[in-house]
């Protein structure tokens, strides 16, 4: 009985890993045989980014059971800190692989630190109040980066929240973060292979965490805080931990994002609450707590608007309709029941056939 269960989770996780790996292999094969359009090739890294974001958010929403509307903020921190680093060390570290690896570390750590900072209010707040605080944090980060000017010259770093001029740099100075204009000229160090490796890493962390002592503690808080306390689970510690890990993973998503495009700005479009909500859409559509679902939802919903390009001006309207329809299809109790019934019929047929 017990072995069966272990096997079941193991199998389930294995399937998830396999889906990622096989998809990767198929896509690679298509690229090599020249069968993948430029559009799709261009979408590969963004898709990896969003998959990572969905997985990271699912850790908070699905496993910890708290609503975060600020994950774009963590992603933003990861993106900017790593892009900052990469731009700065463009010459000092010529090896793109090493540079990107260090950028990853920096992005993840910085984002995780912000995760802990956000985690503090998380301890006191619940539900929608928590959601609004995470949203607020995300917006603060975005707003702050928009007025942040950082430059470097022979005298070292200069920092200002007014404008480039007040950096007071020597003429040889290099503006690294230029307020709303953000960072330009980040090396495009990421690629699809790296993206998939990072997805696998994120999956590894999230799945193994969930199936461990720590994961159980986090889930027990989700299911019943009072009971968790009564058996001695340290609520503070585990909530913070979940938030920090999730933020760190979101930071990795940000690093991938930042090293895919040559411009990085903290616009509402990239890192605003709308983006956080988009990640939430992935998580909810894929099934709360269901990592494989998150992956699929992130892929489908990132592709969808691109596939709808043919509809021109109606594109986003149709996208909205499809989103609503998918939500109702996957979550409405009547639909679920209907699907269950069909599945049951299907299952029964199979059984009876086997019996024959």
């Amino acid at each position, binding site marked *: 009985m017990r072995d069966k269960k272990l096997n079941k989770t193991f199998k389930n996780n294995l399937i998830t890993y396999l889906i990622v790996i096989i998809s990767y292999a*198929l896509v690679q094969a298509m690229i090599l045989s020249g069968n993948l359009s430029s559009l799709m090739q261009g979408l590969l890294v963004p898709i990896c980014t969003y998959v990572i974001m969905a997985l990271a958010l699912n850790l908070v929403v699905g496993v910890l059971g708290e609503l975060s509307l600020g994950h774009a903020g963590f992603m933003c921190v990861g993106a900017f800190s790593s892009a900052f680093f990469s731009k700065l060390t463009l010459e000092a570290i010529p090896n793109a692989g090493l540079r990107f690896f260090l950028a990853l570390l920096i992005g993840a750590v910085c984002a995780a630190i912000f995760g802990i900072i956000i985690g503090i209010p998380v301890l006191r707040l619940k539900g929608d109040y928590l959601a609004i605080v995470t949203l607020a944090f995300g917006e603060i980060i975005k707003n702050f980066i928009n007025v942040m000017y950082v430059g470097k010259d022979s005298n070292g770093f200069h920092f200002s929240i007014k*404008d480039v001029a007040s950096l007071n740099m020597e003429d040889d100075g290099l503006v690294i973060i230029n307020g709303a204009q953000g960072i330009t000229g980040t090396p495009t160090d990421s690629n699809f292979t790296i993206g998939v490796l990072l997805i696998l890493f994120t999956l590894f962390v999230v799945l193994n965490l969930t199936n461990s002592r720590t994961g159980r503690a986090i889930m027990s808080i989700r299911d019943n805080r009072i009971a968790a306390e009564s058996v001695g689970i340290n609520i503070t510690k585990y909530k913070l931990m979940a938030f920090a890990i999730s933020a760190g993973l979101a930071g990795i998503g940000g690093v991938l994002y930042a090293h895919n495009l040559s411009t990085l700005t903290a616009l509402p479009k990239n890192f605003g609450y709308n983006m956080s909500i988009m990640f939430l859409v992935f998580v909810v559509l894929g099934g709360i707590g269901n990592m494989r679902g998150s992956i699929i939802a992130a892929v489908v919903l990132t592709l969808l608007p691109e596939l709808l390009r043919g509809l*021109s001006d109606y594109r986003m309207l149709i996208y909205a309709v499809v989103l609503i329809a998918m939500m109702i299809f996957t979550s409405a109790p009547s639909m679920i029941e209907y699907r269950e019934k069909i599945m049951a019929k299907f299952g029964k047929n199979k059984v009876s056939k086997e019996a024959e």
Partner: protein
Amino acid sequence: GNQASDKTSTAEGKNEVEAEEGTFLIGGIGPVTGELAIYGMAERNGAQIAVDEINEAGGVNGTKLTFNFQDDEGDAEKSVNAYNNLKDWGMQILCGTVTSTPCIAVAAKSSQDNLFQITPSGSAADCIGPDNAFRVCFSDPDQGTKSAEYIGENKLAKKVAIIYDSSDVYSSGITDKFVKEAEEQDFEIVAKEAFTADNKTDFSVQIKKAQSEGADLVFLPIYYSQAALILQQANSLGFETTFFGCDGLDGILGVENFDQKLAEGVMLLTPFAADATDELTKNFVAKYKEEYGEVPNQFAADGYDAIYAIAAALEKGECKPDMSVSDICEAMKKAMTEISIEGLTGEKITWDESGAPDKEAKAVVIKDGAYSLME
């Protein structure tokens, strides 16, 4: 649930414009949904008019143009997607993108492909970083510097206040240079107040700051939707001053139902005025109104000029539609520095190797509900 197989079925992303054999395939990119849609739509429409005109007149050296415009929602990532989509379609020349940040991202890609790119309105300095990238509009630094010079040289004011969008690349880019140039000029910046994309309905504080500092000119390096609100709010606060803006302000008179009295006396440094009396403009405005039911703004004019620049460069570079993308690019790059076009946004526009246009900025003032050229 297999992601990869999903992709194969759609590998040839659908595209509503047929890629016609034997024509030049020109792509366009810009926001036609989302908050910036108005700029993308104007540019698309303006460019389309130019394409139709050229085709009617027999095309470029007898070869017609096909134009395909893709949405990017004003986002860098989506813009790269749009670019790739157009590449799949067979794009040979890119007329885009409309906004700056996406333009920088796309320019990085187009330079890898060595695909000729001319942005009608991507004004950030980096938009023309790679040598395959050109632009039609003035750059942000140019506009900032020129505005400050203009104000200083014409002694329009002693005390200047700035209200700008600190979350916008265009606006903060102009502001930076304006402030810098102001040091050289004989006026003082008494207030520099920001707003953000998330906070752009109420401007009472910014206006009051300018008012209480006694600004005799308010510089508005922003887009006209916000400017319309600022004018309205300044009016109700009884703040009478000169407002001075850049090309983003163009279009303010076209806001439906707008009380044009509010805009009376507003000055702007813009390459295009829909009320100009030259034949070219009159024709264009008439056509635009007929097609799209609106008065075109500067973005439409930029799009129009960009297409004409492309046509001129194609002609000069003796390009053929069956040439490779890279060959077309090389030919056009060279041709661009040799051509001069009569555009809506400048009488004799020429380009240098950097990709920047050389044209005169016109300072216009709104008088009696119409733009009129200032001397």
